[in-house]
């Protein structure tokens, strides 16, 4: 089931090509005399991780969170704030950042998941904006100017993130790990409950599933994976700012998921790639690139059912 197990299908080939491209970019980019693309792809992979995490709740669980970027910010800011206070040990920073993202998701999710539909969208947005304004208001940590990180996370000499290739492959490994994790989770018993709840929550209750606790757990897992993306972003850019979790970022994440194909394992990666490469390319042509980009996204949503994944052929059942 799913793309990981069936590499000879169009989806498998597509996923292999994209992941292969990511894997060999540090070799490819200098060969093509475009070393800048290493950083571009590192950024794309970070957004892909965030999109994969959003897809877990949005695509598989039907929870349209319009505040998902706030976990990106929380993960990033924990790293930034600890570095600011001189704690650069990654073995302390990373678990704490994941814990903070998970805790925030637990608190926000516990409240948001009592609502449905538009209310859910609005309340996730409200919580994210709350964190956004919090980050702006704290002057000690740079308020809207953001916070520069002097040193990337240190792992006692085991992994040197200051090496461009090393941090690139750490990000690559995190992306592949997130994909594998989501693949296992959505096909497990837990994942079936989350999907069933998206499909027909009333029926889930009738057959005996108390879905709230599973949806909440799923929300927390997604928040933590997105927190990981934030950790990586803080390390890559050596900078965090409130802009990481401003609401358009959450909107862009939703777009990446929809563009790639909701509820498909690899769709969000493809979505992030196409979204960011296209935005990058278009902005090279004209300052007013949004005029082309906006209608393009609308056309994709209107006419390409199932996003990029939908272009790779029909799916029978809700698959992995």
């Amino acid at each position: 089931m799913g793309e990981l197990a069936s590499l000879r299908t169009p989806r498998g080939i597509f996923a292999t090509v994209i992941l292969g491209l990511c894997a060999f970019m540090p070799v490819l980019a200098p060969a093509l005399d475009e070393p800048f693309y290493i950083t571009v792809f590192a950024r794309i992979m970070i957004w892909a991780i965030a999109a994969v995490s959003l897809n877990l709740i949005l695509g598989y669980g039907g929870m349209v969170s319009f505040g998902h970027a706030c976990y990106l910010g929380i993960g990033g800011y924990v790293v930034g704030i600890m570095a600011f206070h001189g704690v650069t040990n990654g073995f302390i920073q990373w678990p704490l950042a994941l814990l903070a993202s998970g805790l925030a998701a637990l608190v926000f999710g516990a409240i948001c998941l009592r609502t449905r539909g538009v209310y859910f969208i609005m309340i996730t947005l409200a919580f994210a904006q709350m964190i956004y304004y919090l980050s702006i208001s704290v002057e000690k940590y740079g308020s809207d100017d953001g916070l520069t990180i002097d040193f990337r996370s240190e792992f006692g000499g085991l992994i040197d993130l200051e090496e461009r290739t090393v941090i690139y492959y750490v990000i690559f490994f995190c992306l592949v790990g997130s994909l594998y994790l989501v693949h296992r989770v959505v096909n497990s018993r837990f994942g079936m409950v989350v999907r069933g709840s998206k499909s027909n929550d009333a029926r889930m209750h009738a057959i005996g599933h108390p879905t709230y606790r599973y949806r909440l757990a799923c929300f927390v897992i997604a928040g933590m994976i997105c927190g990981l993306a934030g950790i990586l972003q803080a390390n890559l850019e050596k900078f965090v700012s409130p802009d990481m979790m401003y609401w358009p970022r959450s909107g862009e994440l939703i777009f990446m998921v929809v563009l790639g194909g909701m509820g498909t394992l690899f769709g969000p990666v493809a979505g992030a790639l196409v979204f960011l490469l296209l935005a990058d390319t278009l902005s090279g042509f004209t300052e007013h690139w949004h005029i082309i980009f906006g209608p393009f996204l609308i056309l994709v949503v209107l006419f390409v059912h199932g996003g990029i994944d939908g272009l790779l052929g029909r799916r029978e059942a809700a698959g992995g």
Partner: protein
Amino acid sequence: MAEPLLKVEGLNKSFGGILATDNLFLDVLPGEIHAVIGPNGAGKTTMIAQLTGALKTDSGKIIFDGRNITREPSHVRSHLGLARSFQITSVFLDMTNLDNTALAVQAHDGHSFRFWRPARRDPALREPALRALERVGLDHRADVVAANCSHGEHRQLEIAMALATKPRMLLLDEPMAGMGPEESAQMVEIIRGLKDEHSILLVEHDMDAVFSLADRITVLVYGRAIASGAPDEIRANPDVREAYLGEETAAAPDAPTPEGADSRARG
């Protein structure tokens, strides 16, 4: 006389000023098929929703197996052994019939905080799910996505999902809704086959089916039980004839024949 498995005492539910359930008393004995009939808007589906916990009850008591479940949420009632089928098909349309049924099995096989092993390859879920599909004659369509199934197959799937929760009692809300005569006849046989192991509360419009299956019948009008008794008593009851059966028997004079009841008594 055996202690009733389900006992409803003075149940009420109103929407705005309208009493949908009005001081309702009802019980279902172990191994019994108790049918509830009544004209459209009599409050049958409201009653089912109250019994399963989909709707909150205003006042009154629901006792299941000696336990007061009036305030219990749906999933708790399901775990106590109370299962329902829906009048309007309510399944997981984007999943296969086997996935649908396996989810029902899963709900009764411990908690679902199991994140790693693929559920679709778990024989502990697949095998009981397939058996439930067999019982309603849908096993040959196990791997078909529910959205691609016929109305009749959806009705069968409804029952299979209820059965997969290993219930002691089934609340069947119009299982024959929208079915043709042949499909209905098949469904009657399916329900008759379930009777040995399950108590059944059957809400149904199809009078042939009700009179051939039911041990007892309660007639609901405006949320109130106006009569309750064996099929023959109900057929003879003048209030019922006036309120409800009159139009039915006039439209189909030979509808409630006693043969069904006799064969059931023998079988």
